[in-house]
C-alpha cells in the first residue's frame, strides 16, 4: 500500500501488520479500541481479532458512506481488485479511501491486489452482493429453454449468449433499445439485492410477450428466472451496471445546511430552556419528596407516576421521561431501600438545589450526555408489546453516549448563531456512518436534537454558545457564559390587592424559599406568580414564622405598598393560629375531684410519670398506661384504665431522602485510547509477537530444572533476552520474553517485556527456556 512499508508483498493480514511501523499500529488501536481490550498477546492474535465479526461490525459502524461504498465494491469480486480498478469505479478519492481502510485493517495487500478481511464479505452481503455468474445461471435454470433468448440476441448456444451479454457495448445498446423502464429495473437490481419477485417468471417468453420491462429482460437473457416467481440479475451484468452508475455515495458529505438566527437570539432561547429544565427537575423532585413515586416490581417508574410528573410540570410525557432519566443519571434521585422501594431524591439533591443555577444545569446536561440510556424509548413497546418504563433496564443502550456526542459534535460544526434543521443533521449523519444506529439510525438524531432543545443546549434550532463551551470541555466557561445570560436574581416582588405576589423574574434563593412557604405558586415561567391564602399563611405560621416575620418579609420584599387585605389576612390567621393546642402524651389521668388530682401531682413517687396538669380535672403523663396504673396503685389509689390509645402526632415528618446507591458502572462503547496508552499497547504487542515467534522454535520438551537454572543464570550475566514457558498460579500456560536480572532462592527476577516491569518468577513453575536473540 503506502511506501512506508516493506516492499515485499504481504502474505496475510498478520504478516502485513508485522510490517507496520509502531505509530501506525498505535493509530489502528486508537481507531478500533476494542482490538486493544484486552491487549492481544501478539500480532497474529491482533490480526485474528480484527476479523472477528463483532469487531468488524463496530469498525463498519464508523465508516462513512463513501468508504463503505469502496468496501462494497471490493466485495463484489471474488478476486482482489487493484487500486486502479477501484479508482475507475469510485473516482480519484478512492486512493485515500483505500489507504484509510488499510489503516483500519479492514483491507490489506498492496496497490495491485487489495484483499478484504474475510468476515466483511459476510457482513456486507445483501446490498453489496451481486448475483451468480451468467454461465452458471444459464446452465442451472435455462438449460434447454435458451431458444427465445438466442433468438432475441441473434446468437447460438450458451457460450455465445454469455459472450454477447458480457460485452458492455452490446448491453448498453440493448438497454437503450429497451427503454427507460427497463434500465430502471436493471439499476434497481444492480443496486442489490439482485433478486426480484414477479408472477409467472418461468413462463417461456415469446417475441410478442415483451409488454412489461421484466418480461422484456427475461426474453433477452438479461434476467434469469430462478423459480416460479423470482428473477435474478447475473453477476456480470450487475457489476457492469454498477460501473455505469458509478459508486452511489459521494466522496464528501452533504453540506450541513444552516440558517442564520443570530447568536443572542439562539443563546437567549437556549438559556430560557436551560433555566426551565433546572426549575422543572427541582419541582419534580420536591414533589417526589412529598409523595414518592413507587418503584415497579420489575424496576422502573410506572406509567401513572410518569403521567403525574407530566401533569405537574405541564410538559409532554416524553419530556417528563427525559427529566426523570436525567435526574437519575445525575444521581439526584434513586430508589429507597426496603421492601417497597420508592423513588426519592438523594442527599445529592440538597447540595444540587443549593448550588448556582448554571452549575445545576451543567450537572444535568453532563449526566445526559454521558448516560447510557435512551429516554426517548420510554412508552414504546418491546417485542412482547410491553411498554418500556422510565428508570428501568429496558431503555439501557450502551451506544447512547456516542450517538449523542456525534449529533452534538455535528452541531458544534455549525457556525455560532445559526440554526440547523433536523433533516440536515440526519442527512449528514447518514453519510458519515450509514450503518450506525441500525433501525433507529434516522430516528436517533431527531430524538437527540429534541432532547437537546428541551434541555436548553440549543435554542431556536442553533447550538448555544455555552453549550459549545461545554462540548469543548470548558465547563467553567460554559457556566460563566450561561450565568451571564440568566436574568439576575431579584430581591423584590410586587404584592397586589388580589393577594397575588408577582416575582417579575428569578428570585434570590432566600426570598424564593420564604415565599414558597407563605404562598402557593400559581404560574411559572419568566416570572413567578404566588397566591397568598389563609391556608398558606397558616402553613407559614406552622413552619415557625411569626406574623411579624411575615409582615417584615412583605414589607421589605415588596416594591409596591403592601395591600391592606394582605396585612389583615396575616393578622387574622395569626390571631386564630394556635388557639387550639395539640400535643402528644402517652396517657392521661382524669378525675372529677380536683383535690385528688392535686394530691397525685404532689406525691413524690408520681414524679417519674412526667405528669402535667392541663386542666383542673385532667393530667397528662409521658409514661405508658400500665406504668401510670402501677404507680397510682402503689400510691394506694384504685385507678381504672380508659381507652388505651390517645396519642396524636402533629409534627410534619422531615422531607424524605434516600441514599444514592452505588451504581454498577456500565461500559458504553470502548473508550478511545489515549496516545500514551496506544504506545504502550503496541510495545506489549511487539513483545508478545517476539515471544510468540520464539515460542515456535522453543524446545517442546520440559527443561530440566538444573539446566533451566544454568541457562537463566547465564542469561542474567550476559543480559540476554530469553523466552520462558511459565505456569502461573492459576495453572495457565503462558509464554513470555524476559530479561533475567538475578536468579536466587528458587526465584528469577526478570524484566518482563509484556508488563514492562521487573517481575519475580518461581523457578519450579518454569517449564521451558529458549534463546530469543538467536532468531
Amino acid at each position, binding site marked *: 500500500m503506502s511506501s512506508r512499508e516493506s516492499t515485499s508483498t504481504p502474505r496475510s493480514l498478520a504478516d502485513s501488520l508485522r510490517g507496520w511501523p509502531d505509530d501506525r499500529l498505535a493509530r489502528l488501536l486508537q481507531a478500533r479500541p476494542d482490538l486493544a481490550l484486552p491487549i492481544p498477546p501478539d500480532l497474529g492474535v491482533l490480526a485474528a481479532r480484527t476479523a472477528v465479526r463483532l469487531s468488524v461490525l463496530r469498525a463498519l459502524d464508523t465508516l462513512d458512506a463513501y468508504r463503505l461504498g469502496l468496501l462494497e465494491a471490493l466485495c463484489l469480486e471474488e478476486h482482489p481488485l487493484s487500486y486502479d480498478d477501484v479508482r475507475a469505479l469510485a473516482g480519484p478519492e478512492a486512493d485515500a479511501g483505500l489507504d484509510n481502510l488499510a489503516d483500519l485493517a479492514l483491507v490489506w495487500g498492496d496497490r495491485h491486489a487489495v484483499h478484504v478481511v474475510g468476515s466483511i464479505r459476510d457482513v456486507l452481503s445483501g446490498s453489496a452482493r451481486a448475483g451468480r455468474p451468467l454461465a452458471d445461471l444459464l446452465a442451472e435454470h435455462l438449460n434447454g429453454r435458451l431458444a427465445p433468448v438466442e433468438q432475441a440476441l441473434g446468437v447460438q448456444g450458451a457460450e455465445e449468449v454469455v459472450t454477447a451479454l458480457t460485452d458492455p457495448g452490446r448491453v448498453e445498446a440493448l438497454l437503450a433499445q429497451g427503454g427507460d423502464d427497463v434500465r430502471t429495473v436493471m439499476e434497481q437490481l444492480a443496486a442489490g439485492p439482485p433478486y426480484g419477485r414477479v408472477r409467472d417468471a418461468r413462463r417461456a417468453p415469446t417475441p410478442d410477450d415483451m409488454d412489461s420491462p421484466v418480461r422484456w429482460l427475461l426474453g433477452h437473457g438479461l434476467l434469469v428466472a430462478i423459480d416460479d416467481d423470482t428473477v435474478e440479475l447475473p453477476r456480470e451484468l450487475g457489476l457492469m451496471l454498477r460501473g455505469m452508475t458509478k459508486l452511489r455515495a459521494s466522496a464528501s458529505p452533504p453540506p450541513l445546511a444552516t440558517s442564520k438566527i443570530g447568536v*443572542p437570539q439562539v*443563546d*437567549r*432561547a437556549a*438559556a*430560557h*430552556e436551560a433555566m*426551565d429544565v433546572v426549575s422543572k427537575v427541582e419541582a419534580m423532585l420536591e414533589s417526589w419528596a412529598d409523595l414518592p413515586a413507587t418503584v415497579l416490581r420489575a424496576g422502573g417508574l410506572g406509567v401513572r407516576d410518569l403521567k403525574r410528573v407530566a401533569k405537574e410540570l*405541564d410538559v409532554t410525557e416524553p419530556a417528563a421521561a427525559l427529566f426523570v432519566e436525567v435526574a437519575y443519571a445525575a444521581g439526584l434521585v434513586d430508589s429507597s431501600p426496603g421492601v417497597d422501594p420508592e423513588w426519592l431524591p438523594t442527599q445529592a439533591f440538597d447540595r444540587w438545589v443549593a448550588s448556582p443555577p448554571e452549575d445545576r444545569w451543567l450537572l444535568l446536561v453532563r449526566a445526559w450526555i454521558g448516560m447510557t440510556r435512551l429516554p426517548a424509548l420510554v412508552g414504546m413497546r418491546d417485542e412482547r408489546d410491553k411498554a418500556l418504563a422510565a428508570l428501568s433496564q429496558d431503555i439501557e443502550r450502551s451506544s447512547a453516549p456516542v450517538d449523542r456526542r456525534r449529533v452534538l459534535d455535528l452541531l458544534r460544526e455549525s457556525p455560532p448563531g445559526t440554526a440547523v434543521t433536523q433533516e440536515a443533521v440526519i442527512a449528514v449523519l447518514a453519510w458519515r456512518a450509514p450503518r450506525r444506529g441500525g433501525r433507529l439510525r434516522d430516528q436517533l438524531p431527531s430524538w437527540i436534537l429534541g432532547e437537546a*432543545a428541551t434541555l436548553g443546549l440549543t*435554542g*431556536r434550532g442553533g447550538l448555544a454558545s455555552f453549550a459549545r463551551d461545554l462540548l469543548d470541555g470548558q465547563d467553567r466557561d460554559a457556566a460563566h457564559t450561561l450565568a*451571564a*445570560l440568566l*436574568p439576575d436574581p431579584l430581591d423584590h416582588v*410586587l404584592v*397586589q*390587592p*388580589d*393577594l*397575588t405576589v*408577582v416575582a*417579575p*423574574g428569578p428570585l434570590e434563593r432566600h426570598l424564593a424559599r420564604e415565599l414558597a412557604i407563605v404562598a402557593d405558586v400559581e*404560574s*411559572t*415561567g*419568566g*416570572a413567578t*406568580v404566588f397566591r397568598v391564602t389563609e391556608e398558606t399563611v397558616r402553613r407559614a405560621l406552622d413552619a415557625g414564622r411569626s406574623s411579624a416575620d411575615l409582615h417584615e418579609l412583605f414589607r421589605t420584599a415588596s416594591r*409596591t405598598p403592601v*395591600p*391592606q*387585605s394582605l396585612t*389583615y389576612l396575616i393578622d*387574622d390567621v395569626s390571631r*386564630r393560629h394556635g388557639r387550639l393546642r395539640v400535643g402528644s402524651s402517652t396517657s392521661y389521668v382524669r378525675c372529677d375531684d380536683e383535690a385528688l388530682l392535686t394530691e397525685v401531682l404532689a406525691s413524690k413517687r408520681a414524679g417519674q410519670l412526667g405528669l402535667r396538669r392541663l386542666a383542673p380535672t385532667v393530667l397528662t403523663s409521658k409514661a405508658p398506661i400500665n406504668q401510670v396504673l402501677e404507680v397510682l396503685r402503689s400510691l394506694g389509689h384504685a385507678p381504672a384504665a380508659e381507652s388505651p390509645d390517645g396519642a396524636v402526632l402533629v409534627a410534619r415528618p422531615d422531607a424524605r431522602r434516600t441514599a444514592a446507591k452505588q451504581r454498577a458502572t456500565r461500559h458504553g462503547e470502548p473508550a478511545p485510547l489515549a496516545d500514551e496508552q496506544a504506545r504502550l499497547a503496541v510495545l506489549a504487542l511487539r513483545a508478545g509477537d517476539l515471544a510468540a515467534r520464539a515460542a515456535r522454535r522453543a524446545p517442546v520438551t520440559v527443561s530440566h530444572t538444573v539446566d533451566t537454572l544454568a541457562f537463566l543464570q547465564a542469561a542474567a550475566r550476559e543480559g540476554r533476552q530469553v523466552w520462558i514457558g511459565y505456569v502461573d498460579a492459576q495453572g495457565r500456560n503462558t509464554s513470555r520474553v524476559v530479561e533475567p536480572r538475578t536468579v536466587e532462592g528458587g526465584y528469577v527476577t526478570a524484566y518482563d517485556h509484556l508488563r514492562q516491569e521487573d517481575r519475580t518468577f518461581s523457578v519450579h513453575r518454569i517449564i521451558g527456556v529458549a534463546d530469543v536473540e538467536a532468531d
Partner: protein
Amino acid sequence: MTTDGPLIVQSDKTLLLEIDHPLSGECRQAIAPFAELERSPEHVHTYRLTPLGLWNARAAGHDAEQVVDALVRYSRYAVPHALLVDVADTMDRFGRLRLEQDPVHGLVLRTTDRAVLEEVVRSKKVSPMLGTRLDPETVIAFPSERGRLKQALLKVGWPAEDLAGYVDGEAHPISLLQDGWELRDYQQMAVDGFWHGGSGVVVLPCGAGKTLVGAAAMAQAGATTLILVTNTVSGRQWKSELLKRTTLTEEEIGEYSGEKKEIKPVTIATYQIMTTKRKGEYAHLDLFGARDWGLVVYDEVHLLPAPVFRMTADLQSRRRLGLTATLVREDGREGDVFSLIGPKRYDAPWKDIEAQGYIAPADCTEVRVTMTDAERLAYATAEPEERYKIAATAHTKIAVIEKLVRRHDGDQVLVIGAYLDQLEELGEHLDMPIIQGSTKNAERERLFDLFRRREIPGLVVSKVANFSIDLPEAAIAIQVSGTFGSRQEEAQRLGRVLRPKADGRSAHFYTVISRDTVDQEYAAHRQRFLAEQGYPYTIVDADDVLAG
C-alpha cells in the same frame, strides 16, 4: 440577557403585563386583540392566551405573525419557542373550514385543506349536520344546523369561519338622537368592531353605557330588532333609554313579558318569558320567527340561560350582539358564547374607562363587625347550611349600617341584601322602602322613580337589584348579605353605583361582614373579581366606624 419589556410570558400561557412600565400602554394595545384579560389589579395585569382568544383574533383579521411579533417584541425574557409554535398552530386551525353561501346549493361548508374536511365529516358529532358531498372541498350544511354545526366544529378543534353572511331582515329606519350628548369613543369603537365582525360580544363595565352601544348598533342595522334582557324592569329601562336616545317612538317599541305580549319593530323580551314552558314546550319560541328580525341583542350575555342558547343556534343568519360586563361565566360556557353569539369584538379594562371619566371612581370598603357572644354561640352550634345566614344576618350589623347611612347623609343609598327578614328589619330601622322579588313591577318603578328624583334617601333592595336597573343617582351601596361567594353578583352590585356623578364624586361600596365566619370567607371570594379588576378593598373595623 434580558430586554426591558413590560411583558412576561409564563409557561402556562398567561401573560403578565407590568402596568408601571412606560411601554405598558403600547403593549396592552398590541396584545388585547388576542389575549383575554383575566385580572387587572393595580400593578400587574394578567392576560391569558386561549385557543378561543386566538381564534377571536383570527376572526377579527389578525394573523399569527402579528401575535408572535407582539409577544417577542414586548417580552422581557425569551419566549419559549414551543409556545410560539403552539400559537401559530392554533391560529392556523381557524379558517381551514368556512361556512359560505353557495349560489346554487345554499349553505355549504368549504375547506382549503381536504384532510380537515375528511376529519370533520367522519366525526360522529359533526356528520349529522352535513348533507351531500359536492366535491372534495365542499359539503352541504343544513341551514337549520348552522349554529350547532359551528358549536360542534369548535368542540372538535376546527372552528369554522362563518362567511355565509346575514339576512338584512325587515328594514326599519332607526337613528340616534344626539342632542346634547354623543357616542363616546369607546362606544363607537365597540359598535364598529361589532359591525365589521358581523356578530359578537362587546364587554364593557357596568355603567359604561352598554345600552347605548346596543342603540347605536340598531341604528347601524336600520332593521327590526329583538332585544333579550334579564327582567322586566331592565326591559323598561331599555325602552325609556331608546325613546330618549333614538328616533324610535312609543308605538315602535313593544314589550314581550309576563305582563304584555306586544310584537313591534323593536321588541324587548325577557329571558324568563323565553324559557317559560307550557306542556313541556317552550311557549314563546314563535317570537323568534314572528318578524324578520335584522338584529338580535342579548343584554347581560353572561347570564344567558342554556335554553336560550339552544334557540340562538337557530338564529345564525341574523346579526347577533351580546353585551356584558364580564365574559366569565360561572358555568364555563364561554365556548358557546363564542360559537353561537360570536367572538368578543371589544373590551376595555374598567379602570381605563374610569380614567376617562365615564364611570365613577369607587372606594370599596369591607367593614368587619364582631358578633356578640350569643350570636357566636348560635353560629358555632348551627347546622353548616344555616351558618352563612346566621353570620350574614347578624343583628350586630344593623348599628353599623345605620351609622354608614348617616355618614353619607344626603347621598342616595342602596342597601342590598339577600335575606328578606334582614331587609325588612333594615327597612324599618333606616326608614327606607323595600323592593324585593314579590314587589309588583309598577310599585318598583314608582319607587325607583322616587329614588331617582331624590325624594327618598335610599332603598333597601333584594337580589332584584343585581341586574340592570339604572339608578344614576345612587352613590352609596351597602351590601349586607349575598348569594354566598358569587363574584358575578359582587360586580353587578358595584355596577349599581358606577354611573358617573354630576359633580365627579366617588362612589362608595361597603360590604358589612361578620368577623371570623363564613361570611368573611365568602366576602374574600367575592372580592377577588373586583380586586382583579383593580378595585382594592380597604378593611375597617366596625368599632372604628361606630366611633367615627
